[in-house]
């Protein structure tokens, strides 16, 4: 699955939560070959009309009919602000699919634990795996109700009912996603979200002897393994590249004592 570089046309873009867009691009090669957990580098190319942006990594959030790939983009800094301003019909430069996906064992049920835009990879996963008959829980937390992804659209994309947690309690259950997990469960845990949440999840998995795979975030230069920019520390003390050895890692292969 060699990554493909593609000028992709933005087919639709809608606000799905505060500061959060769901953007669908025409990029058939990526839509057809990408597996949940993989990502793409999204950029504006070498536009010379005064704009300079390095591409940024985004999970391939969903792949639909007709070669469409959906991305969940929350504005944060310069790059996300620029991308979310793209208008339908504009082109982006997309490189993907990249990195290692979540690895599922046949038949084993999964619990997807998403924090914030960590929801993205699980949209695709919940859609395909629930449809294929696997037992899937989608546990999704946000700080507050305004940040929660448009639930109608989420149900439509995934064909699935998410379990919502908000810290302010104004939507779903009040509290954090961890509260939704059964220590004695034996489903495979999949996590994606901010590092503090992943760390807590890893701790939960370790103490309860649960299998956990997490998707990590780190600044990326190239996305394809050449720049060595995106390292995270493995449990045996090596620097491993999030872009090619990850972004999905077994939680116990990472060192959770340092970093972000």
């Amino acid at each position, binding site marked *: 699955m060699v990554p493909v570089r593609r000028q992709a046309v933005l087919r639709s873009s809608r606000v799905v939560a505060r500061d959060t867009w769901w953007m669908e691009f025409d990029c058939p090669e990526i839509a057809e070959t990408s597996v949940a957990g993989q990502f793409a580098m999204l950029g504006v190319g070498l536009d010379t009309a005064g704009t300079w942006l390095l591409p940024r990594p985004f999970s391939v959030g969903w792949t639909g009919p007709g070669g469409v790939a959906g991305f969940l983009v929350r504005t944060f800094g310069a790059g996300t602000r620029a991308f979310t301003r793209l208008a339908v019909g504009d082109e982006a430069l997309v490189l993907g699919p990249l990195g290692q996906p979540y690895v599922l064992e046949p038949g084993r049920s999964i619990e997807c634990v998403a924090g914030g835009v960590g929801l993205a990879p699980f949209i695709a996963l919940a859609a395909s795996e629930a449809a294929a008959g696997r037992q899937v829980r989608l546990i999704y937390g946000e700080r507050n109700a305004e940040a929660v992804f448009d639930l109608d659209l989420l149900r439509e994309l995934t064909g699935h009912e998410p379990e919502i947690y908000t810290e302010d309690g104004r939507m779903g259950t009040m509290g954090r996603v961890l509260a939704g997990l059964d220590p004695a469960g034996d489903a495979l845990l999949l996590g994606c979200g901010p590092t503090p949440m992943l760390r807590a999840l890893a701790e939960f998995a370790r103490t309860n002897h649960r299998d956990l795979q997490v998707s990590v975030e780190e600044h990326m230069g190239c996305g394809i393994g050449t720049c060595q*920019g995106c390292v995270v520390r493995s449990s045996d003390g090596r620097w491993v590249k999030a872009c090619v050895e990850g972004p999905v890692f077994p939680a116990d292969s990472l060192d959770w004592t340092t970093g972000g």
Partner: protein
Amino acid sequence: MAERVGSRTDLSQTVFGVTFHSPVLLASGTCGYGQEYADLIPLDDIGGIVTKAVSVEPRVGNPPHRVAETPGGMINAIGLENVGLEVFRNEKLPWLDRALERAQVLVNVVGRSADEYEAVVSGLDAEQGFLGYEINVSCPNVKGGTMFGTDEAVLGGLVRRLRRATERPLVIKLTPNVADVGVFAKICESEGADGLSAINTFPGMVVDIDRRVPLIGNGSGGISGPAILPMGVYATWRVRQSCELPIIGIGGIRNGADAMQYILAGACLVQVGTASFVDPNAAVDVHAGIAAYLERSEVDSLAELVGGLAFPAARK
């Protein structure tokens, strides 16, 4: 995007005893050892690649974050993480030898002492699959404390030693972090270097104002990308004024027009680094853009334009 390459125009450059059929190379540290880009772009359509720095021992590099965007550019502090001489020789070089037909390979070499530099050169010199060396002198000289590339005596001594260690093309990659890069160019020339690469990154720092720490794990890092384009063109021109060695122009090149600035200022080859992160096809597009410029200008051969910058009398 990619403009069509004309058939009439000749972009080849004969330098270091070989012919580069294209003047565009991938810059060190931005293309690994070539393998990843080989899946994305036709490497044999460009002039060649410069490998990630190779040191005697493998290096583990710096803690994250190692890269971030800066206005018009990026900062990196990889810490010269690399596989080391042994793995490079046994795994990476054989792949380069097999995979590339026309594209030339320069091995970027780094060390903490002149001994280490020399060990890499001696350890590779008998191998196949590469043309010569690009010596990265922008890393701290452990003994002296300063960089190899910012101390005239230390740089001269290093070039002298390496010149004795190899008959292959020896290209010294200059740092812009000096008062006059021309002085350092002259030293390399008189110690027997075959060419100069200009320029490496500028030292920079980004502060994470929320956490009040440096954003980059290493504290500071090197600034690359379009932000440094005019500094690189200036350095190329200064080097051209100061010595006769062939120059490889580097820094901020995104397209044919950027590359032509370096070539007119005196570079016979150019390297594309950070731009490949934005678009993996950048180097191929730079080649096509140079070809389009030649056609538009009705110039048959790129070699005619190297150093073709005129200073109008009235403007001197």
